[in-house]
């Protein structure tokens, strides 16, 4: 019999309270993480989270990979919105190497990132419905995710772990197929989200389950370094896209929805409104891109962006650049940089230290899920078990981002 590493609380066998184990494989958790809860009837006395089941040592691996190969690691952080992680990494490297990308690339990136944000929020809100027993909105709303996946697939070839974009831009221009898929999404999304809201937002059972469950005040949320929709639902309007605009976000006109109480219902509403704001941003970006030269899809940085294959076979400089980039001899300046993007769950930060070599010296991911999940005991202790399940799905913990 193998020994197990779960530490039961002291003397728990003879006590009045029950110790239960929520996870690591549990239908209510989006991934593998565990909570050992001590409950008295239905009320939670104490809960201890345990994580690390999907730790893959990304920070150590990143020290051995050239800069363009680290993108595949970033995919797997918050795998529900992988393009945001990818583009965050590319913008970090561009900040360090002082590369400026053309406007059209910025707008293409904005479209992709907002689609990924809608992707993640669809999952979170639908699963919140499922955790309260409502399976119908989940099955219908996921059709929108299929449309978004078609868009990603036509750009980079894969649906979930996208490895989208390159340092300096994109690997290929948006094709006609891509524009067709984007138009199809733009047409169908408003009706779908209206239908979804009609099913859940004023639904008596959903409101009774979620209002006043898992409450956290703005002061405690700031002390726990919450960011993203969870912080905004508590009343603080901190959004990295507005605070420190990257990728030309300051060219766009959008609102930041903010909640009042910080309970599960507020988080649900904030995410719904954010999906509508993202949709507005996508429409504005498509409009703005009509006035730009449609052949531009990357910056002119031959030291970091691979040249066209035709040129590699026929021109000497292109061959030399291709060789240098693949062999990792590109001149990355030494220095350190901290860059953050607004991920679907909050401020996703990259702390990159380079010593001028072909791989990063130290790369640290500031993962929002990891930081706010430590507040989970404070959210649920003293409440009921069913409130804890809904609270857990409302803060949208993605195991990949929790453990890295």
């Amino acid at each position, binding site marked *: 019999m193998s020994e197990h590493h779960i530490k039961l609380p002291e003397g728990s066998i003879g006590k009045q309270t029950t110790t239960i184990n929520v996870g690591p494989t549990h239908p209510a958790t989006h991934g593998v993480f565990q909570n050992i809860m001590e409950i008295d009837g239905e009320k939670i006395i104490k809960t201890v989270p345990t994580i690390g089941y999907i730790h893959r040592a990304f920070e150590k691996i990143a020290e051995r990979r050239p800069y363009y190969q680290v993108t595949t690691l970033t995919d797997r952080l918050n795998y529900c919105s992988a393009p945001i992680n990818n583009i965050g990494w590319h913008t970090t490297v561009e900040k360090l190497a002082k590369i400026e990308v053309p406007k059209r690339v910025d707008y293409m990136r904005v479209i992709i990132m907002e689609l990924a944000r809608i992707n993640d929020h669809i999952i979170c809100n639908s699963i919140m419905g499922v955790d309260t027993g409502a399976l119908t909105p989940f099955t219908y709303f996921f059709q929108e995710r299929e449309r978004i996946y078609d868009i990603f697939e036509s750009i980079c070839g894969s649906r979930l772990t996208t490895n989208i974009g390159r340092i300096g831009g994109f690997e290929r221009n948006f094709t006609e197929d891509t524009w067709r898929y984007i138009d199809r999404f733009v047409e169908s999304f408003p009706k779908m989200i209206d239908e979804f809201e009609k099913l859940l937002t004023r639904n008596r059972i959903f409101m009774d389950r979620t209002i006043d469950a898992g409450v956290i005040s703005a002061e405690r949320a700031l002390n726990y370094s919450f960011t993203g929709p969870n912080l905004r639902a508590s009343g603080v309007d901190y959004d990295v896209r507005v605070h420190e605009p990257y990728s030309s976000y300051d060219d766009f006109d959008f609102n930041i929805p903010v909640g009042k109480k910080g309970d599960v219902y507020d988080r649900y509403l904030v995410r719904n409104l954010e999906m509508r704001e993202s949709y507005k941003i996508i429409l504005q970006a498509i409009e703005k891109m009509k006035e730009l030269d449609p052949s531009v899809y990357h910056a002119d940085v031959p030291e970091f962006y691979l040249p066209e294959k035709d040129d590699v076979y026929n021109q000497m400089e292109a061959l030399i650049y291709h060789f240098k980039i693949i062999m990792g001899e590109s001149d990355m300046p030494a*220095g*350190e940089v901290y860059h953050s993007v607004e991920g679907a769950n909050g401020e996703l930060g990259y*702390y990159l230290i380079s010593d001028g070599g072909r791989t990063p010296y130290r790369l640290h991911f500031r993962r929002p899920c990891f*930081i706010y999940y*430590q507040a989970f005991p404070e959210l649920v202790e003293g409440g009921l078990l069913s409130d804890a399940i809904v609270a857990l799905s409302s803060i949208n913990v993605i195991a990949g981002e929790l453990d890295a």
Partner: protein
Amino acid sequence: MQNDNINEYLSQSFTSFKDWDTTSDVVSFQVSAAQIIDVLTSLYNEFGYQFLTDITAVHYPDRSKEELCVVYHLHNLRTRHRLRIKVYLNIEQPDIPTATTLFSAANWMERETFDFFGVQFIGHPDLTRILNVEDMDYFPMRKEYPMEDPTRVDKDDEMFGR
């Protein structure tokens, strides 16, 4: 500008403050482990740096007696300024007081730093490993440990070399 005030205030109030560096994207400086909590508290109270973005560590094996560097990133949400504070520690005795008294968010951040680098945070409520197994006896992110486990006998790198 506010940053110059911080420079002046800290250099007058704390003897170990040095290396005020504005060349990088974020203003950074260095203090000693003994004074770090007082520096964080005065930045919290006087200057509005009430949001702790991150705590992490870096290992520089070439700096003798100062190998481990604990890095704090702070953020002032009102003025939109960030700060980076570095504390260098001796790897033989990497002790530093905990920031959990000031920021609840520091709890797991410090556990992660302990798990990967072995930095001992004095006064932490529960300093145990968070992402690795509890019976691991080395600190994996230090530079001397290779990426792959050298004690494994089942993988043959001759055929699938790196």
